[in-house]
Every structure is written in structure tokens, then in C-alpha cells.
């Protein structure tokens, strides 16, 4: 696990970082040169970019493009987090009913493809009279699917906190919620954040699945512009770069959270 503990970079770490940045720059340059060789129609990209980014509303006045992608992802993130905390609690519970419900749900949603789940919620449920809009179908499918994965991540993080921590807290006669939120959760979060961050980045990209329901998010717009103008290379590369930039922002947020919850971490390493 990468842990940046010491705030003062030594000469070695500074040299390491310089070389990492240099290599990144070279690779980015190579990629740009390759794109240049493709003789892309840059004016066309520039013309469509505000739409892809979602700076302009769609004709029916709804957010579109990257803005819609971010909206879908952030909403699903919060719902998935809620679902995951409840599920992880059930998974860690000694109550057989809670445990069974949590494991059943996690198994079902981890064991079926996200695309199938999206289609069942959007296309199959109306058959029994449950009609959900495209947006709510997408949010529900993403939340339930990622909630199941995230629950496992949370569970393993909580279980990785040494038993002695809970015992010491119990011996101090601390109330249960204090033990959970002040002693266990901050230590578990340090372990949960890196895999959870990876899940959220992956959710950002999987949000493109809602395009099949006709939501005008980033991938949908890129494809429809590409189809009408036959500028597939331009539009898909532009979409890919926007997804990539958003992922980098997510990763930076994750890094900051990791630093925050990494306080006092050397103890775990030394143990």
C-alpha cells in the first residue's frame, strides 16, 4: 500500500518524483504525436466540445454530456455508499436474518452483469407495471451493483482493524457508537479508501451504460455526433480524454483522503 508518510521529501524521493513526472510528460507527448498523425479534424472537436462537456443544455433543457455523467456518477456514489454501509453492517452482524439478506443481495448483484441489471430495471420491470424513467433506472442499477461491491470493501476494511483496538475501546467503557465511529471507522477508512476510489473511478466509466437507455451523457453524445458526421475518431478520442480527466480528478480526491486518514499510520507498518 502506497503511504506517503513523511512530509519532508528526501533527495531520493525528490529525484524519484522528478523522473516520474518526466516519464509521464514523454508518454503524453508520444500520445499527442500519435494523435497528430491521425490528422484529426480539430475544428470539429472544438465545435462539439461544449456539448460533450455539458456546458450547454440539451434541446429539452436537461443537462447533458460530461455534466450528466458526473451527475449520474455522484448520485450513484452516494446511494451506493448508503446501500454498502447497510449491507456491510448486515454482513458483519451476528443476526442470521441480517447476514442472510446482506449476503444474498451481494451475491445476486455481484453475480450478474451490470448491463443485464440495467435492462431488467428499465425494460423488464414495466412488464409487471413498474415503469421507471431512464435516469432513475440508471441510478438504481448503478447504486445497487456498486453497493454490493463496496459492501465487501467496507467489510474487509473493518475486519482488518486489529481485534485489540475494539477490546481496548470496550475496556474503556466507551459506548458502542463511539467505538464504531471514533475508533474502528477512522482506521478502517484508511484501508477502504484506495479500493473504494478504484470502484468509483470504474463507476464513472460504467455510467456510460445508461446511454443505452437514451440518456444524453458523454458516451451517447460522442457516438451520435460521430454517427451523423462520420467523425468517429475525433468524437471517441475526445470522449475518452474527458473520461480520463475526470478519473484523474477522482484519483486526486482519493489521494487527499488517503493522506488525511493515514495519520499515525506507521504504527500499523511497524507492528
Amino acid at each position, binding site marked *: 500500500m502506497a503511504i506517503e508518510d513523511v512530509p519532508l521529501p528526501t533527495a531520493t524521493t525528490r529525484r524519484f518524483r522528478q523522473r516520474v513526472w518526466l516519464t509521464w510528460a514523454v508518454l503524453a507527448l508520444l500520445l499527442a504525436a500519435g494523435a497528430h498523425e491521425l490528422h484529426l479534424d480539430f475544428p470539429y472537436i472544438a465545435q462539439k466540445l461544449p456539448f460533450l462537456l455539458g456546458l450547454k443544455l440539451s434541446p429539452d433543457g436537461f443537462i447533458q454530456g460530461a455534466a450528466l455523467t458526473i451527475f449520474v456518477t455522484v448520485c450513484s456514489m452516494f446511494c451506493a455508499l448508503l446501500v454498502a454501509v447497510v449491507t456491510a453492517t448486515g454482513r458483519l452482524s451476528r443476526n442470521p436474518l441480517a447476514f442472510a439478506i446482506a449476503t444474498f443481495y451481494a451475491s445476486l448483484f455481484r453475480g450478474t452483469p451490470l448491463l443485464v441489471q440495467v435492462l431488467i430495471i428499465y425494460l423488464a420491470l414495466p412488464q409487471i407495471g413498474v415503469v421507471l424513467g431512464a435516469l432513475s433506472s440508471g441510478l438504481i442499477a448503478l447504486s445497487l451493483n456498486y453497493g454490493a461491491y463496496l459492501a465487501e470493501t467496507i467489510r474487509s476494511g473493518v475486519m482488518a482493524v486489529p481485534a485489540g483496538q475494539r477490546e481496548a475501546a470496550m475496556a*474503556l467503557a*466507551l459506548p458502542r457508537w463511539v467505538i464504531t465511529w*471514533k475508533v474502528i471507522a477512522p482506521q478502517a477508512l484508511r484501508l477502504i479508501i484506495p479500493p473504494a476510489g478504484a470502484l468509483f473511478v470504474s463507476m464513472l466509466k460504467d455510467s456510460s451504460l445508461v446511454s443505452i437507455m437514451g440518456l444524453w451523457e458523454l458516451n451517447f453524445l460522442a457516438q451520435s455526433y460521430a454517427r451523423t458526421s462520420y467523425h468517429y475518431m475525433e468524437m471517441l478520442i475526445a470522449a475518452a480524454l474527458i473520461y480520463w480527466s475526470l478519473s484523474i480528478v477522482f484519483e486526486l480526491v482519493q489521494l487527499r483522503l488517503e493522506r488525511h486518514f493515514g495519520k499515525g499510520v506507521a504504527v500499523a507498518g511497524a507492528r
Partner: protein
Amino acid sequence: MPPSPAAADDALVTLSRVNKWHGALHVLRDISLAVMAHERLVICGPSGSGKSTLLRCINGLESHQSGDIRVDGARHDGRPATLAAIRSQVGMVFQNFNLFPHLTVLENCALAPVWSRRLSRADADATALDYLARVHMAGHAHKFPHQLSGGEQQRVAIARALCLKPKVMLFDEPTSALDPEMIHEVLDILIELAESGMTMICVTHEMGFARRVSNRIVFMDHGEIIEQGSPAEVFDQPKSPRLGAFLGRIMHGDR
């Protein structure tokens, strides 16, 4: 029910005919023990003899299957309220310190005063600093545990337990995880604590320490109390061959 050997109504901690099993393993066999206020009890015995389990049953970190355990008059009855009441009278220090790594020394110590004793934050910090000063760690209040040596961490752990203002302190091999040169700084604190009149139950292999501070030694083996008495009786005239063999082993330096 026959009276326990040291049965006394005014005992602070009383165990009568306590039994505990881990599956088929009988880890505590008919343990009866009464600890009076200001007593300094040392429990010794080979590993796996049930010493730590005995301690952990007193503050309910582990449950027992039969018999009675009372702390300051309250009987372990499985109710959460009783458990909380008992735990707030009992401080515990662990072999591996178990400080909370994400909290500073001061925050570690102030946690129980704020959330168990319901003091204001200012009063809790004052209490914490007071006890940190007693273990000579007040100067380290704003450090994180990983910045401290093992001996310093254990001293903080002692202060943290004392911040609960317990009536009895349990020590579960408090020096076993320490490098030899750090054992003394922790033992010195324990000696000061004993001299202040604190009731202490200590599981330890430090026989020099046991002889110096304890007024009663309890020897356990295979979940039973085999022998107990003053340090002079237990160390110099062991009656049971098992105790004799145990003392022979630890006196010959292999702990």
C-alpha cells in the same frame, strides 16, 4: 455453594466457582478468588494456564459459562448496562498497548473521560494531562503513538486506563512486548501506582517485580488456581511440584 477461600463481602473483585470453556477446552476450572481494595495481586503460571482469560472475564471482554463474577458489588449478568457499569470501574492495560494509532496521545487519554465519564472537553483534557504527567509523558501529549518507543506507548496506555478513574487496574503481561531496556520504565510506573494504593491485578513473568510490589501471588496451571500466598511463601516454599517446576524454569532465565 461452599464459601470461596477468601470470601469477603467487602471484596472489590470476587470470583466464585467460575468455569469457562473454549469448545471442549476447559480454560477456567472452578476459580474462586476475592481481591480486597488496595490489594496488589500477581497472577503467574505457564502460558495457556488461563491467566489472561481470567483477567478478561473480570471486565467482560470474555464471558464465562458458570459461576459469579462481581466487581464493586455489581454482578456480571449479561446486561449491557451492568457491563458498562463494571467496565467503568476497571482499567485494563494490554500486552500490545493497543493505543489508537489515529489519535494523539492526548486524544487517546481524553476519549474515556469524554465518552464514558461525560466530562467536558476541557476537563477531559485536564484529566488526561494530569495522568500523562504521572507517567512522565505530558511532554509527548501531541505526538502520535507511532512516534513513541514501546515503553512510552505502554506508559500512555497506563495513563489512558487511569483516566477512567477505575477502582481496580488489570495488567495483562504489560512488559512482555517490550525490549529489555524499556521494561524498567514501565515497572517503575507500576510500582508508583501500587504505592499510591491502587488495587491491581497483574499477570506478569517479572518475578522480581512481583516480589517487590505484590502482597499476594496466585499460581495458575491448566485453568486452575494451584497455589496462592505471600511472595515469600510462594517463591521460597512452593508446596506443589508444578509450582516448583514452573519457578525453576523461569528463574533459569528463559522467562
